[in-house]
């Protein structure tokens, strides 16, 4: 008879039998509980302890409600879901069965996809080229970047909307499909940008100026997202470090864009004498010189200086002597104000996921009081530090009529204006100046036929080693569609190291239709 019973329990109808018993138990429990509730009770006496009855009953109800926030709504707590995914010993637990959703680029191409039947399996078609924005999903090393902040969505536990919440609370723990996350990145642009850096240490940011949508966010060197171990151990090349958002570099001459904008906002268009020997901001300070001074000195000649110079020419030739004086003329208050609006001392949030946000490092500008420091800072040297993302964002503000847009990686997020960095008129004047840089000045090599590229080179002194090379640009001048910012660590001159990368990338983006065609169709 026992054998017969075993057969029945392990057979086809075994689960149904157990389910029936479960329902019967709950039903009888309910009937018995209600019968207890409504059973006749003794007559109330002279003394009434109603308050005690209310207090204890209310406390039990409150505890039950709190219990429900774990029992039914536990999936809304990311750290709790993470704990269960790693340490839940239940073989059939819902959070262990979920097929993780894919991460897609703006055209629906796969950036990350699940491996069927492998809980921690993940396929990354772009490999090391996109590991910094996407992050990794690794059983030992954890979850990072977009994989981390979008984890609830990818795991199918994210909740949007009230009706959905109720539905998920009651039934979702049995759900086995994660939801996809769509990014603003373009896989081909990301790939090309990574290839162009060619293993050099550096970063590239490509974004849409009016919406802040990031089309490429590259840090080099990259690493294989399926094997973060060696990358995390490599202290020399630090491939795990996201240089585009976390790296802090002196901005060099790219900072002149902000100083010029600041002066134009104050209606300052001064002409300064720019002698060859440079500008001395105060007693006991070394002179600030133009790069030509050093170029001449290397040839054994003496740089005669630019003589009297206006802002347009100073921008075209990237004159340190002029901009140091312009910075001083603007004054510390206006400068501090501009730095605050440009969010230099703040971190930029570039992704808001269901489990938190991705943020850049903070830049660094000290509060200015002395003349000397302002002269240094105005040319992007001294204590000022920014991330490539910061540079891309203030470049984008010039392209977008002065509006500083929050950079964003998720296609679902709406464009968000962080600040009005300049007036529209100032932005227009800056665009003309930056166009001239590419037509006649330091950025000449970026002048792609009928693309009207506007840009600014930067060569920033590093504390040790060669200078950092910058080029930040946008195109076309009239209706800018795309911003490209390139940084090469210790690359030397901006015009020779960073600029060619930006140029090739602009050409690639043009081939993909991002520069000449309308922005509306794309993120």
């Amino acid at each position, binding site marked *: 008879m*026992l*054998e017969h019973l*075993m057969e029945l*329990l*392990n057979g086809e109808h075994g689960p149904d*039998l*157990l*389910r029936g*018993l*479960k329902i*019967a*138990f*709950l039903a*009888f*429990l309910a009937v*018995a*509980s209600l*019968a*207890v*509730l409504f*059973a*006749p*009770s*003794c007559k*109330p*006496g*002279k*003394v*009434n*302890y109603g*308050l*005690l*009855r209310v207090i*204890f*009953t209310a*406390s*039990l*109800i409150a*505890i*039950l409600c*709190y*219990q*429900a926030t*774990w*029992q*039914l709504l*536990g*999936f809304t707590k990311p*750290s*709790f879901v993470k*704990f*269960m995914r790693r*340490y*839940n010993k*239940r*073989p059939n637990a*819902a959070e262990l069965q979920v097929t993780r959703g894919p991460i897609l680029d703006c055209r629906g191409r796969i950036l990350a996809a699940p491996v069927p039947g492998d809980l921690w399996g993940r396929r990354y078609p772009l490999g090391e080229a996109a590991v910094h924005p996407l992050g990794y999903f690794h059983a030992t090393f954890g979850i990072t970047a977009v994989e981390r902040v979008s984890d609830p969505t990818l795991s199918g536990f994210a909740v949007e909307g009230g009706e959905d919440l109720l539905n998920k609370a*009651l039934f979702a*723990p*049995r759900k086995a499909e994660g939801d996809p996350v769509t990014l603003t990145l373009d896989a081909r642009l990301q790939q090309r940008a990574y290839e162009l850096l060619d293993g050099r240490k550096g970063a590239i940011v490509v974004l849409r100026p009016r919406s802040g949508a990031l089309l490429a966010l590259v840090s080099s060197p990259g690493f294989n997202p399926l094997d973060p171990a060696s990358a995390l151990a490599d202290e020399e090349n630090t491939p795990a470090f996201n240089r585009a958002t976390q790296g802090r570099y002196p901005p060099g001459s790219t900072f002149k864009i902000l100083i010029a904008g600041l002066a134009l906002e104050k209606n300052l268009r001064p002409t300064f004498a720019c002698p060859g020997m440079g500008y001395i901001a105060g007693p006991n300070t070394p002179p600030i010189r133009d790069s030509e001074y050093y170029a001449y000195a290397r040839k054994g000649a003496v740089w005669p200086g630019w003589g009297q110079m206006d802002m347009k020419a100073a921008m075209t030739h990237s004159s340190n002597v002029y901009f140091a004086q312009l910075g001083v003329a603007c004054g510390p208050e206006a400068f501090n104000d501009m730095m605050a609006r440009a969010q230099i001392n703040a971190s930029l949030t570039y992704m808001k996921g269901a489990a938190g946000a991705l943020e850049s490092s903070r830049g660094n500008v000290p509060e200015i009081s002395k003349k000397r420091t302002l002269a240094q800072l105005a040319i992007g040297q001294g204590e000022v530090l920014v991330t490539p993302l910061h540079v891309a964002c203030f470049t984008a503000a010039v392209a977008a009529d002065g509006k500083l847009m929050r950079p964003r990686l998720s296609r679902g997020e709406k464009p968000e204006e962080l600040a009005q960095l300049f007036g529209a008129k100032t932005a227009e004047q800056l665009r003309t100046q930056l166009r001239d840089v590419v037509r006649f000045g330091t950025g000449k090599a970026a002048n792609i036929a009928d693309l009207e590229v506007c840009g600014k080179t930067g060569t920033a002194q590093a504390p040790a080693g060669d200078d950092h090379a910058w080029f930040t640009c946008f195109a076309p001048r009239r209706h800018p569609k795309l911003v490209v910012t390139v940084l090469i660590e210790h690359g030397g001159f901006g015009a020779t190291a960073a600029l060619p990368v930006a140029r090739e990338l602009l050409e690639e983006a043009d081939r993909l239709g991002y520069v000449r065609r309308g922005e509306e169709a794309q993120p």
Partner: protein
Amino acid sequence: MSRTPPPLPPVASATGLFLLSALAVLCACLSILGVKLSNAPLLPWQQLIPLGAYVAGVPMALLWLKLIGWKGDPGLVGAVFLLSGVGLVIQFRMGSFAQGLGNPVALAPFPLGLAAFLVGVTLTGKGRGAWLAKTGWLAYLAALAVFAAMLLLGRRYRGGLYLPGHMNPSEIVKPLLVLFLAAYLSMRQKAFSETQNGIPVPPIPALLGLVFLWGIPMLLTIALKDLGLMMLLNAILIVMLFAIARSTGYLALGLAAAAAAGFGVQFLSAHAQARFDVWLNPFTDPTGKGWQILQALAAMYSGGLWGAGLGSGVPQAVPIVSSDFVYAALAEEVGLIGCGLLLMVYAVLFSRGFRAAGAAKTPFERLLCVGLTGSLAVQTLLNVAGVTKALPMTGITLPFISHGGSSLITTLLVAGLLAGLSDRK
């Protein structure tokens, strides 16, 4: 003359409630047996003894009630038998009886508890409870003796103190001190009822007397490092002071004192501080200190609304789940629905306990009834709140359900006293 049909006699009502409970217990056992059998065909059938004791013993207990002419609150008795039925089921499921006759200590508590229940009913039933007031001082001394025995002979096990044979006699301290307080306070009702602007101001001599007498067991709980017991006893004191003075001032005072003590105690004891930290942020050390509570919450989460079904979950993943954390096992297997029903039964039990207190004849019986009900209610609250992370864990067991012989026997004795007090003729 009333036209409604005369209500069923209390014992008959209680028997009806028990039959419904027994049906639920039967379904639960079949479900658990089904899962156990499909895993291992050879079951030691002796592990069914406590369930047999339930099915056979409770009707005998009801017969005893009939014989002594008990006319108390049938809902109260029904709730007691329903809760202890669920307790037996979950302990059977957790394998607490798995060794069968090889470990008789595990099988004995329910039959013994049933006997204690009948002793309780007989002691206080038919309005005879008043004489217990004379034993107040005896109870006080007995409680101190238990503490002394614990201090001298106790051995530490998992942070708790036990006598040889794994007994935890500190359980009996609760009803003993409630009995003492009921006797002591009912003699001084007037003094403790004095209030000014809603703030209770008992005369200094009365206050000093209470502080002195209550201070000794409190110091002993500190010596035993049983802060959970201290919290519980103080909560009972507050409830009883409120009941005698009928001034909400005591409740406000008690809440303030509890908050201050909860905050202050973490500076005194590393153990308490660790529990407090885990409560505030279990995720800082998920595999260490946070492990137990997080596994308990994970068990609840996997249970969801309807539960995995009795026997079909994996509550063993929660450390020492069958005693302090038994509520997590229930939540996993009977779901939030089942938990809601159980908490409702608890609420009914407490509600009827307080109601019976209101109807008692002498102030002593009233206070005794409030204190005993309060002790069960506070224990239930602290345990369930601890397991669900609503409050820090206090290491207090869940009445009727947690594993532990002394706990179950004491709880059933208290339930018996309450059932007797509800019968006031």
